Structure formats: structure tokens, C-alpha cells
């Protein structure tokens, strides 16, 4: 076991990890950030997406030790301190972009990364960007719609709700 320290959602956090401890396990089990989910073991589903030093990564495919000293952002840090949802979170709620909620943390974190590099993505760009985030509930319709809305695009022409 070694001590691993990082900043999670702006606050210092540290805990014990083995060499083989994944960042996702470290966040969930050692630090208690259970909002990051693990839905597969082949690095495809994206429920575990967090940001490390400002870029989206699959926390199930990174060792905790590799994040030593890093700035980590998780779903728990996305809303304002008073609980107000951020624009992306609010759009997901407004447009019913989630059902069971399990893939949602990864969807929100991937969306944040997308909008950072492409503030007004087209439908096709959104769909392609979500290649690494699998949702089994929504058929993606309302997720794509929510992301378009979160980026300030008019979604009223997309099938009504």
C-alpha cells in the first residue's frame, strides 16, 4: 500500500492504494465518491468517466497512483455548492436525459468535456462523441437533445415531450 494524494473537486483528498488499485475503485471505495460508477471492465461503457487535469478519462482504466497530485473532477463536484444544478445537469433533467441514472455521471462528465472543446456541437458530433458512453435506458434520444439544449441550441423542433 502507498499513500496517494490528489485534489478531488477542489479539495485535497488522500488514501491508501495498492499498485493495482484503479482510480475508479480509489474514488469509490477509499474516498467515498460513489457517484462514479463502473459498468464494464473493457473500458467501453463510460459510466466511470471523470476529469483528470482537465481532460476526460475512464477512471476504470487508470491506476490510482497515476493520478497522484492530479486535479480530479467527479460528478459530485458539478453542481453549485448550494446544490443548484449546472447547465448540463439541468438540461438532462429538463429533457429527461436519464432514466435509471447509472450511466448519467459519465454522460454528464463526457458532455462537459465535449462542450469545452466544441461549444455548439451538431447532432452528429454529439452522437460520435458519445461513442464511449453507453446508455441502455434512453435510446439516446433525450440525451442528445439535452446536450443540444445545454449548448444553447433550440431543440423545440426535435420530437416534443
Amino acid at each position: 500500500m502507498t499513500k496517494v494524494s490528489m485534489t478531488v473537486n477542489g479539495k485535497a483528498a488522500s488514501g491508501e492504494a495498492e499498485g493495482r488499485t484503479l482510480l475508479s475503485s480509489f474514488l469509490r471505495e477509499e474516498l467515498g465518491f460513489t457517484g462514479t460508477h463502473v459498468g464494464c471492465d473493457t473500458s467501453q461503457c463510460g459510466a466511470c468517466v471523470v476529469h483528470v487535469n482537465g481532460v476526460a478519462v475512464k477512471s476504470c482504466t487508470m491506476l490510482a497512483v497515476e493520478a497522484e497530485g492530479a486535479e480530479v473532477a467527479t460528478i459530485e463536484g458539478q453542481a453549485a455548492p448550494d446544490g443548484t444544478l449546472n447547465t448540463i445537469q439541468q438540461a438532462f433533467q429538463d429533457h429527461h436525459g436519464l432514466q435509471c441514472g447509472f450511466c448519467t455521471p459519465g454522460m454528464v462528465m463526457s458532455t462537459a468535456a465535449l462542450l469545452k472543446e466544441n461549444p455548439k456541437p451538431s447532432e452528429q458530433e454529439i452522437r460520435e462523441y458519445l461513442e464511449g458512453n453507453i446508455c441502455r435506458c434512453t435510446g439516446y434520444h433525450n440525451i442528445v437533445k439535452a446536450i443540444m439544449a445545454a449548448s444553447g441550441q433550440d431543440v423545440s423542433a426535435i420530437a416534443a415531450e
Partner: protein
Amino acid sequence: MYEFDLVKPATLTEAVAALGEEDAQALGGGQTLIPTLKQRLASPSKLVLLSGIAEMQGISVEAGVVSIGGATPHGVVAAEVAQSYPALAALAGNIGDPAVRNRGTIGGSLANNDPAACYPAAALASGATIVTNARQIAADDYFDGLFTTALEEGEIVTQVRLPVPEVANYQKFVQPASRFALVGVFVAKFADGVRVAVTGASEDGVFRWSEAEAALSGNFSAEALDGLSVEAEGMMADIHGSKAYRAHLIAVLTKRAVAAAV
């Protein structure tokens, strides 16, 4: 995963020394190795992290050659060679998914040489030079079948030098589940000829389709490929496609690559 020790060398020399130990293995971005470790299909005693080695980072372009540090993630390649080598940027920007592209590295991909990976096609078609801590290896001598390369035990891909073609294009037909290449064809036209590299298809891993190269070197147009086909024998077959289907796709994708490059 089995338990292992981790070392984070700051220099190539330290990394090479660490890899000299029994059952030590290099960890690039980990996007293939970590899932492999999770399935307990590998059991290194020590993992040597390459991500902290400054000399393996970064991209430079000079004299018509793009040089990419072995530890450079796909996402960085996609962004930084967009002007200098657009076909390579497009390829890098379509490996895995965005989060995978932020971790996975060109050196890791070439060292692993997955038969369905994209980078081997780019390296082979570009006539790249694979630079390691010990030597320089021409791409034509580097790839050696499925998951096998000319690398020696403990040898690290520190840089990849890719001559920039006059025009080039990569066509990837994805396997619907993994989104790896079911077949991928990279066509690169140089002043002295055309190189065509095919990934995803052959039982022997990435290969050059020499008949197509000959035809295209004389006449760089999709029509030049009319009537050319690849033997189904020797292609891979699985639940996603037969040998014949893969062979068929090679011809289709090569034409499309040429058409897109012209």
C-alpha cells in the same frame, strides 16, 4: 488484477533500467494493458509508467516528417497534426472514444500491435521509422504478425517518425461492438510511389497490399483498382465477418481511400 509494483521513472534511462528486471512491463496509456490486467491475462511483477518521461512527449514537424513522442496520446496527435498530416490526425481522432484518446498513446499502440488497431496501418503506409531507446526500425521491418513486433524484451518505442505523403486517407470500417477496425485501409501517395496498408483483416496482422500499390503508383485513381481483389485465404474470420467479407472490404475501402485522397 494481480498485484504488482509500480515505478514512475522520470527519464528514459531509468525506465530502461527498470524494464531490465524480471517480468517488468511498460505501461503507456494503459488503455489496452489495464483491461488485459483486469482479465488477469497478464501478470507483470512490475509496471513501469512511461507517462512521466518528458523526452517521450511532444510532436515536431520538420523536413516533411512528423515526429511523435511515444507517450503522446491519440487526442494530442489528432489536434496537433491536423495541419501537417490531416489523414493521420483523422485516424488518431477516431481511435477508441474521446476518453480513451486522452490516455492511449501511439507508442503503446505500436508496441502492442493489435491486428485491428489503426496506428499500425498509418505507420506502415507512411513508411514510418519506429525509434526505440536502442535503435531505429523501419516500419516494413517492425510489424511481425499478431501482437508481435521487432521489439526486444524491455525495448521502448520512444518516438515515431512518419514521412508526410503528398496525399493520404484512412478508411476505417468499424467492428460494431469493439469499434476497432473490422478492416482499415491507409493509402499514402508519395512522390516515389503509393503505399497501401491494411489492418484488421489478415491473420498475419497489418500488411501492405502490393498489387494495389503497383496499380496506384502508375495511376492514382479509384479506377486503377478495378478488378483487383484480395484473396480471402489468410484473412481473419469471426462472428463479425468472414474471410471473404474482409477481403471484399479491403477492395472497397481502398477505393474509397483513394477517392477521398484525390
